[in-house]
């Protein structure tokens, strides 16, 4: 415990400059990647370009950032407040459909254009991307509170189950939403496509404008990181950590349990909404069959692998798993197959990989790759007791 206390003190001392430090580091890394993809890559030899395209394509990069945004949201719920959420895909879906509703020609009955780059002749509701991000986030936060309010007094594993059920219901509602009492809510399995371009001053970003979108997604990620870090040190964040560590003790000390938990849910859901909207613009549409349970689990694996409660850990975990999931594993498989002249289908080992990661991390490194010091202490609190069980009888 003494060591952790020391660390806390140190972080307090550098607190004044810490936000400037990470902002500069993060943004300069992003700027470096941006410059590399927009200016340097096209001047490099053909062979190098194709290697980069197969291992780190720019679309994969943008998608990974969407995963990071959602994983950071889940981290607030699971990592900070210690509430297991197995239905995070619901918020992703709701965010995606808010982009579908408010940024496309889908509601052709209406004709609303506000600060948008879409063709004014097009019917439908067309709002600015920046507004839709907030709207999507708010809708998600609303649903987070709706689902949280009656169930947050439950024990943790029941809560996990309720969120899981919620994560099943929402995608099914969207899949069957073609005809709800005669009203077409989601266009069913056909999905809503295309969605509007993102409008930046003097430009409308088409679906293939990766480098600009990269810049926008980086900004959104930076916003999420900033929010996560600020909340953690603030009153609410300390309340979350207290609840995570000992709910009873926290409530005795005057931490309002329900309000704090609901806030965690709302903030997490909000970022899920942001991620959903961003993803909809990334793939230029929303499709109901994409939203399934495995998304919730992959997000959870990201948080667990990286280190629950640690923003940087979660970011590393999310980037790593998103990369493995999209291009890393196939590219690695191709490399292995061509070198050793085998034909192993590497992407088919996905399930084993995620399952294995979850199990092994929980057994051997519960705190993740980049652990958060306080959580590490809690998670290993009971280890001595555990070894006693194995020895008895």
């Amino acid at each position, binding site marked *: 415990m003494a060591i952790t206390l020391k660390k806390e003190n140190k972080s307090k001392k550098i607190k004044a400059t810490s936000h400037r430090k990470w902002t500069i580091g993060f943004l300069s890394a992003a700027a470096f990647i941006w410059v590399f993809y927009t200016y340097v890559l096209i001047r490099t030899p053909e062979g190098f370009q194709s290697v980069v395209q197969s291992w780190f394509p720019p679309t994969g990069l943008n998608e990974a950032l969407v995963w990071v945004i959602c994983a950071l949201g889940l981290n607030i719920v699971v990592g900070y407040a210690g509430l297991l959420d*197995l239905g995070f895909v619901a918020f992703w879906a709701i965010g995606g459909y808010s982009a579908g509703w408010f940024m496309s020609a889908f509601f052709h009955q209406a004709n609303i254009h506000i600060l948008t780059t879409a063709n004014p002749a097009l019917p439908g509701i067309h709002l600015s991307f920046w507004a839709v991000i907030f709207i999507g986030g708010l809708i998600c936060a609303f649903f987070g509170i709706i689902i949280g309010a*009656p169930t947050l007094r439950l024990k943790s594993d029941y809560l996990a*189950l309720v969120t*899981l059920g919620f994560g*099943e219901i929402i995608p*099914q509602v969207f899949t069957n939403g073609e005809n709800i009492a005669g009203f077409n809510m989601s266009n069913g399995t056909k999905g809503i496509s295309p969605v509007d371009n993102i409008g930046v001053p003097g430009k409308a970003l088409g679906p293939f404008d990766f480098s600009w979108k990269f810049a926008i997604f980086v900004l959104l990620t930076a916003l999420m990181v900033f929010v996560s870090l600020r909340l953690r040190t603030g009153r609410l964040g300390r309340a979350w950590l207290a609840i995570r560590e000992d709910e009873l003790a926290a409530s005795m000390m005057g931490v309002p349990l329900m309000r704090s938990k609901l806030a965690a849910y709302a903030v997490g859901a909000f970022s899920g909404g942001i991620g959903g909207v961003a993803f909809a613009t990334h793939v230029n549409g929303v499709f109901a069959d994409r939203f399934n349970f495995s998304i919730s689990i992959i997000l959870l694996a990201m948080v667990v692998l990286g280190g629950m409660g640690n923003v940087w850990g979660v970011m590393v975990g999310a980037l790593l798993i998103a990369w493995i999931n999209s291009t890393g594993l196939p590219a690695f498989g191709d490399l292995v197959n061509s070198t050793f002249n085998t034909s192993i289908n590497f992407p088919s080992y996905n399930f084993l990989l995620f399952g294995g990661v979850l199990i092994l991390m929980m057994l051997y490194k519960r705190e993740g790759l980049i652990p958060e010091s306080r959580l590490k202490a809690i*998670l290993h609190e009971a280890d001595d*007791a*555990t070894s006693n069980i194995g020895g008895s009888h």
Partner: protein
Amino acid sequence: MSLFTNGYQSRQDRRKYLERTLGLIAATLVLYWLGINFVKSPSQFFQASLIGLSNGVLYALIALGYTLVYGIIELINFAHGDLFMLGTVFSANFVAMWLGQEYLGGAQWGVFFVCLIAVMVFCGTLNVGIERFAYRRLRRAPKLAPLITAVGVSFVLQFVGLRWNGSGQKTWNSILPKGAFFVGEVRIPYTTIFSFAITVPILLLMSWIVTRTSQGKAMRATAQDQDAARLMGINVNRTISFTFALGGALAGAAGLLFQQTRGLTSYNLGYQLGLIAFTSAVMGGIGNLQGAVLGALLIGLIQGLNDGLPIGLGQQWSQTVVFSILILLMAFKPTGLLGKRVTEKV
């Protein structure tokens, strides 16, 4: 109840009253819905109920596995549904291996029962192995750790199923007699009768083991208080292993029955059915064996009626209906229908 004489003293009383009113309204609506459907087409009503109940007994077998494990170590074993899935794949391959192409005549019953034993042993052993290697070390860890591990195990089992069964759905021949007889206009397949005839003795055996044998007594003691049970000389580890074996065996039996009555296997079957079964276990009051069976029959019935009745939401809303029930139950009656109210440890 002194609700009305004392007035609403506290928020608790008001809440209780509100819950009861809402429950009554919901029950009335459900009864009304059933009533108009019954009047509209009685034969369809009975047909749907029959299909629902025959699904229900299957859910009961799986739900018992959840409730046994939850009762003893308070873990939602997410991998249990996938264990059931491996049971279906195992029995399909096992039966196909024995049966070949030609019809075996009377020997098919022999094959069936050999397969029943084999699949029960297979799933039971697998479940014990999972407990030994994944859950045991985490028994005293914070709740989140074993829960996440269970999700991981579920993925690994799905991977095994994917390898074993392929990524698509496979159809198999059944060795059970085909055909059906009619009562009025209601078609009763022989397989339905058969699955009742297999399930009911298994359930009775189960309840005998838990209530009458010394091993069952040890299980109940361990569920109540592990440390006290250990002090009384009960081998806690072995008791927990036995519970997992029992749950696994039930899942295996359910796997064989499912594969034989539906004739299909698929690697992602376990997830959906497992969730439904868990919902049933929660509905009856998790940790309560009779409750799990009751909940499973009810869920099966609700699902069957929703899918089969002329005025209903239809099959594409099946999951939504089941999970909405789950969420409502969790919100208003987390102890379930038969569960006892225990003091919350927070």
